[in-house]
């Protein structure tokens, strides 16, 4: 099933597109007008989501793991990314 979401952080929109098979994330793309450094690391977050459960605790652990790799994102928090991903709904 395809899930889509749009979430407004303090600064920036996070748009989420997920493919979920059963309860498992099989594809993920995050787009938007936020800032995140280093920029190319965003694809790592998408990669880390693959094979994980589309449920709050699993998504939280992935996003927290991602931020531990030295990510900074002004006015966009760990919780923003979790809310953005978990807020995605079936198309």
């Amino acid at each position, binding site marked *: 099933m395809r899930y889509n979401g749009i979430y407004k952080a303090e600064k920036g929109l996070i748009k989420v597109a997920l493919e979920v098979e059963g309860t498992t994330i099989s594809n993920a793309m995050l787009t938007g007008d936020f800032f995140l*450094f280093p920029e190319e690391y965003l*694809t790592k977050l998408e990669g880390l989501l693959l094979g994980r459960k589309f449920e709050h605790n699993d998504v939280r652990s992935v996003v927290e793991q991602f931020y531990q790799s030295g990510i900074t994102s002004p006015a966009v928090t760990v919780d923003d990314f979790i809310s953005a991903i978990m807020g995605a709904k079936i198309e």
Partner: protein
Amino acid sequence: MRRLSDKFRFLEIESSDNARMSLATEEAIFHEVISGRSMPTFRFYRHKNAIILGCFQLAEQEVDMDVANKNKIQIVKRFTGGGAVYHDLGNLNFSVITKDNYGIGTNVKTLFGTMINGAVNAFASLGMNPQSGKLNDVTVNGKKILGAAASIRQKAVLFHAATLVNTNLPLLASVLKVPGIKLKDKGVATILERVTNIKAESGKNEQDVREALKKSYSDLLNMELVPGELTKEEKDLAQRLYNAKYSTEEWNMGRELLPV
């Protein structure tokens, strides 16, 4: 004691007909400043008719392709984050590309907060009452006149901004798709209510804006501007980046993230 001023190369080189080459050049300069081969640089440039997307954006989500095609608007992805902007010759872009001798790149909010002040001071000197926004924009009378983006690499910083001097705002508003959730956050119903031109607000022209920005950033960064040219290495690297990245549909229209 005031320290000696830092010499910055001043560039007014632009490839306004081809924004894709322009952004390739921007990245090439950043690489050469990071490596220490090029001087810190203050650059003005313009684009004739282009949409510049943030690196995390997807063209189809941000651009009304019918309007873009009808108006022959070039679509280009930049290597910095942030949102899509429309550029015509009424929009003045500038960039500051330097080793981080200022200690501003360790905290991204500090980087934006420091660098945006150059623009705020410039607009104030032109008789406007500018306000800096949450992070990366400047408004006058509640309407946006400048949007900025930045990158940090290996103790070097790049800050670049688009300045609405006399842009075709109805075209800007019709070609950019901005979701209701964002407009609502800004307290407006349409994009057109959210943007304005410096010319309309102050009567000042592009040359006035250039002079004001040169003066304010010279004061802010204690920089002395020295007119210069692109180096051979920058030109060669820009061409390679253009061929491999900025001229490709995968980069401009997709959501590939290539390391800078």
